[in-house]
Structures are given as structure tokens and as C-alpha cells.
């Protein structure tokens, strides 16, 4: 049942054109937890002087991962859409390194799913960003 849900969520994420455009790949999914990696790409640079990836690309990664965590939650029917998302940027991602987001859907009601997410590069101890979001529960 849960494995099935993870498979459906994985298939859905892999079909998203914009996730493909950013080269995202799922490294873990199931039971309300999702982890997705996005490789370093010069096209995503926000500050040409430093080569640091734009915050918008990090937001996209965190939004996708958060949505995936909701879809993989045992209590969530299937589809979801972001209601709101807040992202705090702690530091610039190190140029040349992939960015990974890990999201936890920690609570689901009949209508709303609550998510925490964190993004990091090779240094997992010092997050690049953290996020908090609410998502619709559809189905």
C-alpha cells in the first residue's frame, strides 16, 4: 500500500517537465518523507560573480520535495497543491555542489498537510535553507 503510494509519487515527480529541466532526481520517498537532489548547473546561477545558485531554484527544489512528501504520506489521498511556503536562507549554496532537499510531511488533516523541509549541499550539518509549508489534500 505505502510502497504503491511511493511508486505513484515517484512516477508523478518524474513526469514534471520543470523538475526534469532542473535535473531533479528522487533519492528517497515514502511514509511522508521525500528527498530530491538537483545537480549544480551554470544556467541556474543567480550571482554571476560568485557562481552561487539562485534562491528561486532552491525554492523550486524545496516546493517539489515538499509536495512529494505530502503525496507519499499514508493519510494523504493523492494529489496536492501548495497553499503557502516560507523559506529561510541561511547561507549561499557552495558553487559546483549539488543541492539536496529533504521534506517531512509531519501532519495531515482532512484538508491540509503540514511540511518541514531542509536543503543542504555536501555539508549536511549546515543547511543552505529551511522551509515550512502547508499543502492542500485533494482526492
Amino acid at each position, binding site marked *: 500500500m505505502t510502497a504503491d503510494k511511493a511508486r505513484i509519487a515517484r512516477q508523478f515527480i518524474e*513526469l*514534471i*517537465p*520543470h*523538475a*526534469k*529541466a532542473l535535473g531533479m532526481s528522487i533519492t528517497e520517498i515514502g511514509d511522508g518523507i521525500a528527498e530530491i537532489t538537483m545537480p549544480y548547473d*551554470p*544556467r*541556474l*546561477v*543567480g*550571482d*554571476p*560573480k560568485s557562481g552561487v*545558485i*539562485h*534562491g*528561486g*531554484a532552491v*525554492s*523550486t*527544489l*524545496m*516546493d*517539489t520535495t515538499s*509536495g512529494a512528501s505530502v503525496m507519499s504520506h499514508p493519510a494523504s489521498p493523492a494529489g496536492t*497543491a*501548495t*497553499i*503557502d*511556503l*516560507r*523559506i*529561510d*536562507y541561511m547561507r*549561499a549554496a557552495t558553487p559546483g555542489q549539488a543541492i539536496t532537499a529533504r521534506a517531512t510531511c509531519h501532519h495531515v488533516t482532512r484538508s491540509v498537510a503540514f511540511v518541514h523541509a531542509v536543503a543542504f549541499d555536501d555539508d549536511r550539518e549546515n543547511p543552505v535553507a529551511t522551509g515550512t509549508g502547508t499543502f492542500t489534500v485533494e482526492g
Partner: protein
Amino acid sequence: MARPAPEPVQVVKQRRDAALRALVDGVPYIQFLGITFERRGDELTAILGFDEKLIGNPFLPAIHGGVTAAFLEVTGIICLSWSLIWEEVESGALNLEALEAGDLPRLPKTINFTVDYLRSGLPRDAYARARITRSGRRYASVQVEAWQDNRDRPIAQAQAHFLMPRRDD
């Protein structure tokens, strides 16, 4: 006491547009998303030209929520940066050659960003404008709104805080 003659309008426009172009064209991610800016005086409107690669839900279809967030964040950063260089563009103190050669001013850094999704982003162009509610020495507070066909029906709104670039003077 005779006032100096105002600069010819083409000279003023050329300088403003060149400064804006240099600011926007220097950022690879803005080109990747296909965002452009239109200017009326000092007012900027950001335009996100629709492209298939921006789709986040192929079944609806709808623009990726992350793209909408990124569009709002880009609009906020560019509008804030624009407001920071505006005085120098107007006075002519800004070194346009250096700017066009890629010597961009230091950009504000996003501290945090909150986006509310109000309607799904349809597969067509989107527009956004930012309002700088506070621009201090160290921090700035900016509100951004995006819409598509109907200005009164925004698809998303954002509230962001930025860390201002250090001024070396």
C-alpha cells in the same frame, strides 16, 4: 537664474534602459526562466513568458509553484536593485560601460521568502510587480504580486526580506 536645459528624452531613456538591461541580462537564472522587464519611468513590470519547461503539473496543466515563487523572488531582487541604482542612473554617476561589461552592483541577498498561492498558474504569460515597503541600510522588506489575464485576480503574492549589499563608499 536660468535652469540647465533638461537632457533630451532619448538620452535619458537610453541610459535607463541600458542600466536595466545590464542588471537583468547578467543573471543566468533570469535568462533560463525567460523573465524580461518592462519599464515605465522607474516602475518595472516583470514578464514570465510561457514555456513548456515551466510546467509543474502536466495533467492540469499548470506552471510549477517553484517557478511562480522564483518569478516573484527575481522580481523582488531586480526591483530592489533597480531602486538602489536609480539615483546613480539619473545623475549619470553610474558607470554604464562597466555595468554593461558585466561589473554588476552587488545584489541584495534573500533572507526569507513567503509565497501564498492564490490560483493555479495557467500555461500562459505571467506578470509581476514589487512594492518596496521598507528599504533600510541593512534590511529591506518587499511585497510582490503576480497575475496573468486579470490584474485583479493575482495567482500568487509574496513577502520577502533582503539583506542589503554593503556600500563601499
